[in-house]
């Protein structure tokens, strides 16, 4: 019933990219996003594409999976494409009928901006595909920890993220079980109009909430009985360490960023 929902999109294999420090990967992902926004021509895009393919190869993640991550965004990409196509004014008129005017500039811009979206999603997907949610939360906590000076709850935030992620499969399983138990008592979740169906959810939602609160209470108790008292003075089992590979990765992405900046300076307006 609910067993075909996979959590997150982490692709669990071993690769140089998977082994990178999550903090470094986060920084690199941000640098990549910056690079995407700085690219001003299709030449820049070719460089970005080359980098993406290289990183994807290195991470042993099938390229198909990376493209699958784009699926939920296809409507937005399409919308971006159409809006730019129809509403970009220019000089070189290509198509004209009724009230529709399509200019050469519009076509280029439509392709350009849609590709930008594709690059953004593909780049960040590579991050989530190669980093487990837990280490991602660890990395975020670590990167945000300087903000603790201004009382930003970095540790609490990361802990909440980790717990929420941890409990999604548990609650799904629970939902499945309660659903079956109520169906065994003749409940019907599938037929009827919207109101009937909404009401049919009550026997499912009440036990689910009750059990979620119960679990929360149990977990809090279990954490406290093991002396958890917030992030203060807490050490970690897995200490994040930057290795030589992390610095090499940083160099590569820095080079990419450099190339894109150079392209911005020398090729501005060439293909556009």
């Amino acid at each position, binding site marked *: 019933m609910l*067993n075909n929902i996979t959590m997150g999109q982490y692709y669990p294999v071993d690769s140089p990219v998977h082994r990178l420090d999550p903090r470094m990967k986060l920084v690199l992902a941000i640098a990549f996003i910056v690079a995407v926004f700085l690219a001003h021509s299709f030449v820049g895009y070719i460089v970005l594409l080359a980098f993406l393919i290289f990183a994807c190869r290195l991470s042993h993640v099938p390229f198909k999976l990376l493209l699958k991550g784009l699926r939920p965004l296809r409507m937005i990409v399409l919308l971006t494409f159409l809006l730019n196509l129809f509403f970009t004014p220019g000089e070189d008129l290509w198509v004209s009928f009724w009230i529709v005017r399509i200019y050469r500039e519009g076509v280029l811009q439509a392709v350009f901006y849609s590709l930008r979206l594709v690059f953004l999603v593909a780049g960040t997907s590579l991050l989530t595909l190669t980093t487990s949610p837990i280490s991602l939360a660890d990395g975020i906590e670590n990167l945000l920890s300087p903000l603790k000076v201004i009382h930003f709850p970095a540790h609490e935030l990361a802990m909440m993220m980790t717990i929420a992620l941890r409990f999604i499969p548990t609650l799904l399983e*629970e939902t499945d*079980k*309660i659903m*079956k*138990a*109520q*169906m*065994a*008592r*003749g*409940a*019907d979740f599938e037929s009827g109009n919207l109101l009937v169906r909404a009401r049919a959810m*009550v*026997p499912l939602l*009440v*036990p689910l909430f*009750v*059990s979620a609160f119960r679990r929360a209470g149990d977990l809090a108790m279990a954490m406290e009985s093991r002396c958890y008292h917030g992030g203060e003075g807490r050490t970690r089992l897995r200490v994040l360490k930057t290795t030589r590979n992390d610095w090499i990765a940083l160099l590569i992405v820095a080079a990419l960023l450099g190339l894109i900046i150079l392209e911005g300076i020398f090729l501005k307006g060439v293909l556009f």
Partner: protein
Amino acid sequence: MSIEVRHLTHCYAEGSAMRTVALDDVNLTIGDGEFIGIIGHTGSGKSTLVQHLNGLLKPSSGQILIDGEDLNGEHVNRRALRQRIGLVFQYPEYQLFEETVAKDIAFGPKNQGLSKEEIDSRVRYAMECVHLDYDKYSERSPFELSGGQMRRVAIAGVLAMKPSVLILDEPTAGLDPRGRDRILTMLEELHGRENVTVVMVSHSMDDMARLATRLIVMAEGKVVATGTPREMFAQEELMASAGLGVPDAARLCRALREKGFDLPADLYRPEELKEHLLRLWKAKTASVGKEGSPC
């Protein structure tokens, strides 16, 4: 009402890398009026099997026949069938949701579309079956009851549909000895007085020794043996190979036999063991008495 399972196979996560075979070519028949105990180690497929028995899971292959009719056939009203085969899940108290005990028990009969009077009489009947006083508990919130009481309310919720077959998955798990005894007594009465066919999944060999008329032993998704408790519990090696023990009384009996006590090999109930031991003891004191030396 008879249930026949034919070549039932069930795989979880079919077609993916995590595919696991939970049931592998299971064949069994459950006759009218039986009290079946399904026993097996964790992960042997017991829970998957009982969910098939009332059509909550679809078999990967094979059939379940209810009175000769295929449960997963095209024109079968599965909702109606589910009400004739009541299934009580593990930890059923987690399915309670209504404001009052009576309303929660009425959920099943209400879904059956019964009249108000009928629903009310069903609720009274079900509460009586599980030994909960109607006047005292019907208007209480189910969430303020003790664990054992909540479980009995949940079981009443299934009994209120008056199923002719009652399936229970680990009904005594996590209860204290008194709560456990209450549930078992209740099942004994249901089976004896109301003539309900009962299928019970359990880890506890002592529970099975007390109630079951026939045992089905499962291991790794297969039925490895079936027979009366007396036949099954006498074969300690077979049980051990399925990762199971035997009731305390059977273990004690075996240990005593090894010490040279003259006892039958197939005792498994505390009462019958007690009787045999008393008889031996009496015989011994009688013979000792003849020789004239006191104890």
